[in-house]
């Protein structure tokens, strides 16, 4: 009984923290329509800043808290909204997700830069050591404070939303954004305010949860991700339900710790994955009509359809370039190029899925990992059948993920696939083996797995140089496949799915088949990429294929131009260049970690990606002048005759007087 109480207390205090984080998420989402994937990263970053102030510089706790919670975090949230998210009003859902993911990635890179890992950073909770006993269970002061914070946040939010005009504004924006403008309100300010509050709540959650584990970047970022499940249970719109969701997750996790971890076996390791599994189930259980983000937006993205002969020529040129360049590259450069090309294949696999079909999946490297495992397990000698197995097994996994996720779109799909990836990271990949159909299939475990380099028809691609040629050939082959898809009726179907899911829904079964098949195809291609990546490294560990590894690949592919094969290639080139620069100038390593994030944020300006920029520039040169895509609507400056400043009440009065109006203002 005592242990049960102890676990309950533990669960309640974690639930409190999830509730704080999740309510911030719900607030920002409802008022701005943008799901803040970087919410956890903001909490992580704030925890580090607080550590810096409180423990490194020895500031008094209240001062450090006030500075982080009421100055820095809100400021950051507001700047994020005004500077980045506001520009996304007209962007497609895919671009919105990617930009938010880019912010996450940038914050993680920045934190790793400022606070290098592998340093002990003691982070004690509030009033360490003090505890009280309630009915035989010890409750630490920190746990009590966590619960108190959740209650305070609940009351505070209720007061803001019900008792202040700013709160009424927030609810009005949720009701009818355009109407608030007619009332003379400012929805943009409402969004900035809610992002400021949201960031502050993320920061509070980060600071509260940090003592429970070592202060380290990735676990902290993901731990607050657990709060996403609570937010989804609250259907991203209802705060009370969100709090209930947080309770469910906190308690489930605590009892999982208590009663599952003592058991061995495959399911003994499920505990860390509980919140993401709940997230996955909650997403699937959401009623259809509640899902927002089903609006069909006019996308600004760019999907050229190149001619087949041109594609064949480019593909051939790539292989020839690999043949010619290979001998001139040193071992280090060769390795970098190989790695970039292998990741480029994964990036290419995103083109039909994210680019054409507009389905943002965040688990592509998980499929790559599955491919690597398939290769390692079926072809230890490097038989080409291993690559086939990699494709097939990953494709099946892709279809299995897609099946429950069929009706999810936009952020919901992104979240579900992220949950899948994190569940694999935390639970499946790190197991030594899994039993499937009575066979024992070795997984990564905590060590690395050897992946053979392919040997095809007696030709060994064992050397790094031969690897380059093989990778170029596979990339070229898949590129041709993707171009062929773009030109086919199937490709038009994918684009239609992106533009108007509603119109496509009338096609019924065909939509289901299309969606499943594009997921499977994309996962299969990623699987082959992963198998080849394993060969490049010769031995790979689970963390090569973690959720966080997907982010730079996705970001750079989107930055290159997710709508085109060229874009995926450009993304691979960028990856390779970043790595080469980081290797030659080790001091730049940290900047490089931040770059994908920064580049992704730049998408807010041009969702078509670099490939479309280059295309425009080249077309412009041909036409003799730079060509620009027309702006959506021209900004006309305020043109008060004789007044070129903001309008003051005095102006209003003057105007009223001049017009002889009845209004007494």
């Amino acid at each position: 009984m005592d242990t049960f109480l102890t676990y309950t207390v533990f669960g309640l205090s974690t639930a409190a923290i999830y509730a704080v984080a999740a309510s911030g998420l719900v607030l920002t989402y409802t008022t701005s329509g943008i799901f803040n994937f970087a919410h956890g990263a903001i909490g992580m970053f704030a925890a580090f800043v607080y550590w810096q102030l409180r423990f490194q510089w020895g500031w008094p706790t209240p001062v450090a808290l006030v500075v982080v919670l009421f100055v820095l975090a809100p400021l950051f949230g507001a700047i994020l909204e005004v500077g980045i998210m506001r520009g996304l009003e007209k962007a497609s859902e895919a671009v919105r997700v990617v930009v938010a993911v880019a912010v996450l990635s940038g914050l993680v890179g920045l934190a790793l830069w400022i606070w290098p890992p592998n340093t002990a950073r003691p982070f004690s909770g509030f009033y360490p050591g003090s505890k009280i006993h309630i009915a035989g269970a010890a409750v630490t002061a920190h746990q009590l404070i966590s619960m108190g914070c959740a209650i305070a946040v609940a009351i505070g939010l209720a007061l803001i939303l019900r008792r202040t005009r700013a709160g009424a504004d927030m609810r009005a924006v949720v009701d009818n954004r355009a109407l608030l403008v007619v009332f003379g309100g400012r929805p943009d300010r409402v969004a900035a305010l809610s992002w400021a509050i949201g960031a502050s709540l993320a920061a509070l959650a980060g600071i509260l949860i940090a003592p429970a584990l070592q202060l380290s970047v990735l676990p902290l970022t993901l731990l607050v991700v657990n709060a996403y499940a609570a937010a989804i249970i609250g259907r991203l719109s209802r705060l009370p339900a969100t709090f209930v969701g947080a309770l469910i997750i906190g308690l489930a996790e605590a009892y999982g710790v208590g009663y599952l971890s003592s058991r061995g076996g495959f399911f003994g390791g499920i505990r860390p994955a509980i919140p993401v599994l709940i997230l996955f189930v909650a997403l699937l259980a959401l009623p259809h009509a509640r899902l927002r983000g089903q609006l069909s937006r006019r996308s600004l993205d760019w999907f050229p359809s190149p001619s087949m002969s041109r594609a064949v020529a480019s593909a051939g040129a790539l292989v020839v370039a690999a043949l010619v360049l290979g001998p001139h590259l040193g071992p280090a450069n060769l390795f970098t190029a190989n790695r970039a090309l292998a990741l480029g294949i994964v990036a290419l696999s995103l083109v039909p899925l994210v680019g054409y079909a507009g389905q943002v999946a965040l688990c592509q490297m998980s499929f790559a990992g599955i491919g690597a495992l398939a290769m390692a397990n079926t072809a230890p000698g490097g038989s080409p059948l291993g690559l086939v197995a990699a494709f097939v097994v990953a494709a099946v996994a892709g279809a299995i993920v897609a099946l429950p996720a069929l009706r999810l779109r936009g952020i919901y799909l992104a979240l579900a696939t992220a949950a899948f990836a994190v569940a694999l990271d935390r639970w499946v990949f790190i197991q030594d083996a899994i039993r499937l159909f009575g066979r024992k299939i070795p997984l990564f475990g905590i060590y690395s797995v050897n992946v053979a380099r392919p040997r095809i028809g007696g030709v060994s691609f064992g050397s790094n140089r031969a690897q380059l040629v093989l990778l170029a050939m596979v990339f070229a082959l898949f590129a041709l496949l993707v171009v062929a898809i773009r030109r086919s009726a199937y490709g038009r179907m994918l684009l239609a799915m992106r533009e108007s899911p509603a119109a496509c829904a009338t096609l019924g079964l065909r939509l289901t088949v299309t969606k499943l098949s594009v997921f499977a195809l994309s996962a299969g291609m990623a699987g082959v990429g992963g198998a080849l990546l394993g060969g490049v490294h010769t031995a790979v560990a689970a963390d090569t294929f973690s959720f966080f590894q997907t982010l730079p690949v996705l970001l750079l592919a989107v930055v290159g131009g997710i709508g085109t094969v060229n874009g995926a290639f450009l993304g691979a080139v960028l990856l390779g260049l970043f790595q080469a620069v980081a290797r030659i100038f080790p001091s730049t390593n940290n900047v490089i970690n931040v770059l994908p994030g920064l580049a992704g944020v730049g998408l807010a300006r041009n969702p078509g990606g670099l490939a479309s920029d280059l295309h425009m520039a080249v077309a412009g040169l041909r036409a003799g002048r730079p060509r620009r895509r027309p702006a959506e609507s021209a900004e006309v400056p305020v043109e008060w005759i004789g007044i070129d400043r903001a309008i003051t009440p005095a102006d209003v009065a003057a105007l009223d007087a001049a017009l002889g109006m009845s209004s007494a203002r």
Partner: protein
Amino acid sequence: MSTLAAPVETALGPILELRGIHAGYHGIEVVSGVDLSVLPGEIYALVGPNGAGKSTTVAVAACLHAPTAGDVLLGGRVVNGARPQDLCHLGVCLVPEGRSVFPNLSVHENLWLATHAGVALDEIESRAYGRFPVLGTRRAQLAGTLSGGEQQMLALARAVAVNPAVLLVDELSMGLAPVIIAELYGFIREIASAGVTVVLVEQFARTVLGLADRAAVMSNGKIVGAGRPDEVEGVLEAAYLGAL
């Protein structure tokens, strides 16, 4: 009550004027060269069949929708591109099409949001409840649960309570019983006689023409006739038939 068929031109000229307005959505033009001039204190009716571009025209007048060409003038000043909330502060108040209240906010909170226009809450509430006592009894009720007529009263009350100089009302009568329409039109007449300029957009022309001082008929994005109500009656039929 304003009974002049055509109000005398004041020295100041029109209070609201549209000059050569072109506007559209996603590159498709739905308003092509509209000129409109509304004099201070008059009731001006803008009528026309479905899809004529009336709502788009008033959205342009309230600076909610940017025109592709043409000017919006308020009191002789060009206000193109002004932010809608500035226009709201300057006394141009739009009651958009549909039920223009926040359904999940109470009556009281709906009026609270009207304070964005710069008028104090108690002033707004006393005016609104004074004119429509039924709203006063529904203060804490969610606006979405009010009857259609009550919602439209709330929308009008909110707009009038902030002292507008120009009131733009889009489809006041939509979906309402004739007796309620009559009451709301009575209210419009009252505020116009207090000096407020009112632009009424309606699809069904007959009733509103009985109320208006002047009217314009719109069809296919163009003004096809303008003048005193009896003057535009003639073009009405053609406009509605033409749209069929």
